């Protein structure tokens, strides 16, 4: 317990960790502000401006529309109009200008939809926080190796297993704190936004949001401990980032080359998304069940939440199983 408190203190004193934690709080808020801006209510001024722009567009295209109208009247079949239609000119006119956008369509601004926008925001913010948590775990361990202070710490607590676990515990709790703070501020902001816009958020949406927060929080903790364990194994933050870069770049490609019937099931991003989104559906034309004849319904595979958690959990356990014994046995510089 004493060591855990020391590691939490060490974590909180690290500048890089503070910076990444701040980013984990600020970036989701920026995403929220961006959502608020892109879903801001359409004002009268917006509509007037849209009407003016539509009129200008129509004026600019008037000659071309007139030409098209004339051609359509002469050759209605080319325009998909039955020549026996009672009023061909009216039908052509309808076709030419009937699709003219309304001012609302011209503005093209979505209304805030708590269910859809909340889920999208939560997914993106959760992914971002998980990535930052991974960096927190990696940089936290990497700093000890880079400065050489790991050996100094072991002169005070030579039980390496305890040191490893205390640091892992510190990273886990640190990531939990960061994810919780980030989520609390984000969803408080989202609640404020919906209230301000007078948009109702149903209990079901909040329940889904809570579940999403739980899943992304879990992902952040897994990522932080994974980043920590990998860095304790490689003894270098840069090494960890290099491995992750290669995994991100070539991991799916390598898995795709393996003779697996459902290779995409093992793609890292698919499993991450399955955890965040409570399951992930992907298209794979190489699936044995995939056929154009039946409308491609068999071309979709699914990674469930449980499968995603098991996949990421197995990766984490594998990394820890290499990291801890390595730390126990190898010489410390």
């Amino acid at each position, binding site marked *: 317990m004493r060591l855990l408190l020391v590691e939490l*203190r060490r974590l909180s004193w690290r500048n890089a960790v503070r910076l990444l934690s701040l980013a984990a709080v600020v970036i989701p808020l920026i995403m929220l502000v961006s959502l608020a801006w892109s879903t801001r209510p359409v004002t009268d001024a917006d509509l007037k401006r849209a009407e003016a722009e539509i009129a200008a567009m129509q004026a600019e295209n008037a000659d071309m529309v007139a030409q098209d109208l004339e051609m359509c009247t002469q050759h209605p079949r080319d325009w998909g109009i039955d020549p026996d239609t009672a009023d061909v000119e009216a039908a052509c006119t309808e076709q030419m200008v009937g699709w003219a956008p309304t001012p609302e369509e011209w503005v093209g601004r979505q209304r805030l939809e708590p269910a859809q926008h909340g889920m999208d925001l939560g997914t993106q913010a959760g992914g971002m926080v998980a990535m930052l948590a991974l960096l927190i775990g990696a940089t936290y361990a990497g700093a*000890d190796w880079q400065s050489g202070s790991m050996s100094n*710490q*072991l002169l005070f607590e030579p039980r390496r297993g305890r040191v490893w676990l205390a640091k892992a515990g510190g990273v886990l709790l640190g990531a939990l704190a960061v994810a919780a703070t980030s989520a609390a501020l984000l969803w408080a902001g989202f609640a404020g936004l919906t209230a301000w816009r007078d948009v109702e958020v149903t209990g079901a949406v909040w329940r889904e949001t809570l579940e999403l927060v739980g899943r992304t929080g879990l992902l952040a903790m897994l990522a932080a401990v994974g980043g920590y364990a990998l860095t304790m194994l490689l003894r270098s933050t840069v090494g960890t980032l290099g491995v992750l870069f290669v995994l991100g770049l070539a991991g799916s490609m390598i898995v795709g080359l393996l003779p697996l019937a459902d290779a995409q099931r093992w793609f890292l991003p698919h499993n991450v998304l399955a955890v965040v989104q409570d399951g992930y559906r992907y298209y794979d034309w190489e699936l044995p069940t995939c056929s154009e004849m039946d409308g491609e319904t068999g071309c979709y595979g699914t990674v469930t939440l449980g499968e995603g958690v098991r996949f990421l959990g197995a990766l984490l356990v594998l990394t820890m199983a290499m990291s801890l014994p390595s730390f126990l*046995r190898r010489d410390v510089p």
Partner: protein
Amino acid sequence: MPQLVIETRGLRKVFRHRGRSRVAVRDLDLAVPAGGVHGFLGPNGSGKTTTIRMLLGLSRATSGRMALFGEEVPRRLPQVMPQVGAVVESPKFSPNFTGRQNLLLLSRSIGVPDSQVDEALATVSLSGRDGDRYKGYSLGMKQRLAIAATLLKQPQLLILDEPTNGLDPAGIREIRDTIRDLAGAGVTVLLSSHILAEVQQVCDSATIIGHGRTLASGPVEDLLGASTAHRVRLADPDAGARVLTAAGHVVRREDGLLLVDGDDPAAITRCLADAGHYLAELAPVRQDLEAVFLELTRGEAMGHGPDLGAGPLESPEAGTGLEGALR
């Protein structure tokens, strides 16, 4: 037999890298008695730091046995480490933390009250700079902070690996005084150093190693040996040399003086006086540790084994073992 605070038997460390292996420590026997300052000497790459790192659990021994305070390490390290303070190679702290933060993290990890951090900082005269970031410290301040860290444990054994490296003369004197003060307070100090004069001045006993093996060990006075030659000044050194040689003495010329082997000044005086040559000066020539060290490690740099028979030194390999060597 004195109580030993450090003891190694047949300690061996082999580094393996890309299929190649290098023996850093070769069946090293080391015995450091309780109390006083024990020097640990050897050329670069002789295995001093590797030995210290193995003793402290930072590096695994390939074979052999080690004990601190009679407790076998690394198995019993958790039990003995609270009594051991150490600075291995250069001081290693988190560069972005202040000196005080670095010490607080260490003290809290062993349950030492924060007030002891202030005391340790004051002992090494860093109280005024404890709020500065470690990376802004001078080398001397870093060394002092490292020593302050060792003091947090109030250790019974202090292991210092080149503690005066990079320090200015005032800093060196300060560290030496600290070492002597600690030894005076009953702390056993193992001092690994390249500065032979320092070891000679500060240490009560010393071990000299080369190529990972113990070359000699014992009290510094014994290592230096009794005087084995006398410097003689005469009005006519040539005639004096002939007389002494005729009497069976081994005589060498050095800058107009005679160096006469042997430890019987009365025989030299009598021999010369009987022949009508009167001494202007007769002084014993004592070896310093540097001479002993260079003689013992002469072959090391060239890759040859040392001449263990040279000088009045004992070799554990040829003698009666470490306890005997330390007498």
